[in-house]
């Protein structure tokens, strides 16, 4: 099967399944699992074939409904977006398998509603990755955001309040992005990214272009939770239902970073982004370094596993923003590689958290005692994820961090190197504290009295967790070919790994 429309089916499968899940899920719960898993398996397979096709034949553009650009909306399938397509659909597939169990556990009777939103969110993320139109991107950004608000609000406890705060911050971010697009439209009269990129260099309006660029960047930074614009993120992600958190946390921030790369290099040119305003590039690397330190410091203060992970996520976002803004090939390679790696590491750790919460009902640190004896397989996978987050060599976290540090050294940014090293040290402290609690401390009486805690999580939760842990090592060992065959082609023109 090698049709030119394949990537569109990748996008359409979860969208159409969303409606099927809503209708059939009302009739019988048993429909939901096969439908959701089937659609996402199809998407992941299609995304893999799209990636192979792009690597063989090169990037291509696709117009929907045969309305020719710049008036029609076009999809852009180049090596970077094909790689992201595969990443999003694969992570979504693994997270869904685990979510099926945890949602049945946490939201009994509301599974069909949960998975309707869930599938629309995945379709929105896939659309964001593919679109080549600046306004279309805004609409898709809001589709993903609105579904995320709904999913987070389904959580228990303070989730509704966290979701409301996310709505306020998310809307500010999206509105800033929309304003930036408005300025670009005034300047160029078009919304097609490639068209804007062609017209912009010939214009003589430095102030207006800079305003547009600033609005676009700040809007996306709010959306991705770059410190200090992160305040909404830890609450929202840690109080969402576990099934939703395991998908939203790895994917939303990574896709937004991909969008930042798109805006920087596909709408504006690398020359404009890095050279037009003296000091901006160095300033952002400094800001990212501070963000890494502060977020890692805040992670130290947390007493709940999932909250700690969200603060680490905030630090990781700053890794990637800093890496891209290092403005050399090595740094950008590291950032793109880290998008892949961080999505997998976050997925692995959140899936482990979901498995633990399924069995013990709590992620407070004082409830983790003796977990290695009760859930050895889960904790083994958790350890792999933790090692990757710290950056221990055979796992993939080491390689992207290596590229980021190398890029920072070449670009002459010692502060970024320092921040990365300190953050790795803090990660080591954080994770060894948990390993110490769960391995050496005997199980407390409190937890022994609950009989359901004994044993591992069900196979539907355990297998994606193990797969993601294996993927961490596999991607780590395959970093060389990955960079050589895919990321090298995905670099903006003029940069090499």
């Amino acid at each position: 099967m090698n049709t030119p429309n394949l990537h569109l089916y990748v996008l359409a499968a979860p969208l159409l399944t969303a409606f099927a899940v809503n209708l059939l899920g009302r009739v019988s719960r048993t429909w939901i699992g096969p439908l959701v898993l089937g659609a996402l398996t199809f998407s992941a397979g299609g995304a893999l074939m799209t990636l192979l096709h792009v690597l063989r034949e090169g990037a291509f553009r696709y117009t929907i409904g045969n309305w020719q650009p710049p008036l029609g909306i076009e999809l852009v399938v180049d090596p970077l977006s094909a790689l992201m397509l595969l990443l999003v659909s694969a992570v979504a597939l693994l997270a869904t398998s685990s979510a099926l169990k945890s949602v049945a556990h946490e939201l009994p009777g509301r599974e069909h509603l949960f998975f309707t939103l869930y599938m629309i969110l995945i379709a929105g993320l896939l659309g964001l990755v593919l679109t080549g139109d600046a306004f279309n991107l805004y609409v898709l950004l809001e589709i993903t955001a609105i579904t995320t608000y709904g999913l987070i609000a389904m959580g228990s406890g303070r989730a509704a309040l966290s979701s409301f705060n996310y709505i306020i911050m998310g809307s500010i971010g999206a509105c800033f992005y929309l304003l930036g697009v408005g300025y670009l439209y005034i300047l160029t009269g078009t919304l097609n990214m490639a068209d804007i990129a062609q017209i912009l260099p010939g214009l003589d309006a430095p102030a207006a272009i800079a305003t547009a660029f600033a609005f676009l960047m700040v809007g996306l930074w709010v959306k991705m939770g770059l410190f200090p614009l992160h305040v909404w993120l830890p609450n929202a992600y840690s109080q969402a239902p576990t099934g939703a958190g395991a998908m939203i946390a790895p994917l939303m921030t990574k896709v937004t970073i991909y969008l930042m790369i798109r805006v920087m290099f596909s709408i504006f040119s690398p020359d404009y982004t890095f050279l037009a305003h003296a000091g901006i590039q160095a300033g952002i690397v400094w800001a990212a370094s501070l963000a890494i330190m502060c977020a890692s410091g805040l992670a130290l203060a947390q007493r709940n596993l999932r909250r700690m992970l969200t603060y680490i996520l905030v630090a990781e976002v700053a890794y990637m923003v800093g890496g891209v803004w290092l403005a050399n090939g090595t740094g950008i390679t590291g950032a793109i590689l880290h998008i892949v790696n961080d999505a997998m590491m976050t997925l692995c750790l959140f899936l482990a958290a979901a498995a633990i919460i399924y069995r013990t009902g709590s992620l407070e640190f004082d409830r983790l005692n003796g977990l290695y004896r009760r859930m050895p397989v889960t904790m083994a996978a958790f350890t792999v994820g933790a090692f990757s987050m710290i950056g221990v060599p055979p796992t993939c976290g080491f390689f992207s961090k290596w590229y980021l540090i190398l890029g920072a050294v070449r670009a002459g940014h010692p502060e970024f190197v320092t921040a990365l090293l300190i953050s790795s040290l803090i990660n080591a402290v954080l994770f060894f504290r948990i390993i110490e609690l769960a391995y050496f401390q005997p199980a407390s009486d409190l937890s022994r009295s609950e009989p359901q805690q004994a044993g591992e999580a069900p196979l539907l939760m355990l297998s994606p967790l193990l797969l993601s842990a294996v993927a961490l090592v596999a991607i780590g060992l395959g970093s060389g070919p990955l960079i050589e065959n895919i990321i090298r082609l995905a670099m903006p023109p003029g940069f090499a790994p």
Partner: protein
Amino acid sequence: MEQLLSEIVAKYNYWIYVVLMMIGFYAMIGKRNLVKKLLGMNIFQTAIILFYVSIGSKRGGGIPIVDKHAAMLHGVDATGVVNPLPHVLMLTAIVVSVSVTGVALAILIRIYRKYDTLEEDEILEKIGR
């Protein structure tokens, strides 16, 4: 001073957009009542809609619906009609803003049922207890 004034009058719609946006921004950040925050968000989005609609308008521009025969004979005089594209974009943005407001209102109802108040301070106090 006079120059500044004429500058403001000439581009009054853009000034209103900036003022509206700041009002909305203040309400979102500064107010402690959750409904007021939501209203601020709506004002913020309305400001952006005004901005976009301003882009498309032209002095003396008519509605962008042209007679087919006249257009085929003489072509379309672009200076005579306003640019419809920003208006169309804003239709989409209005749909987005309505749905965000809907979701937010639904969440506010849940918050009210849970905490019996929509004042942020009181909610945080109840959570802290």
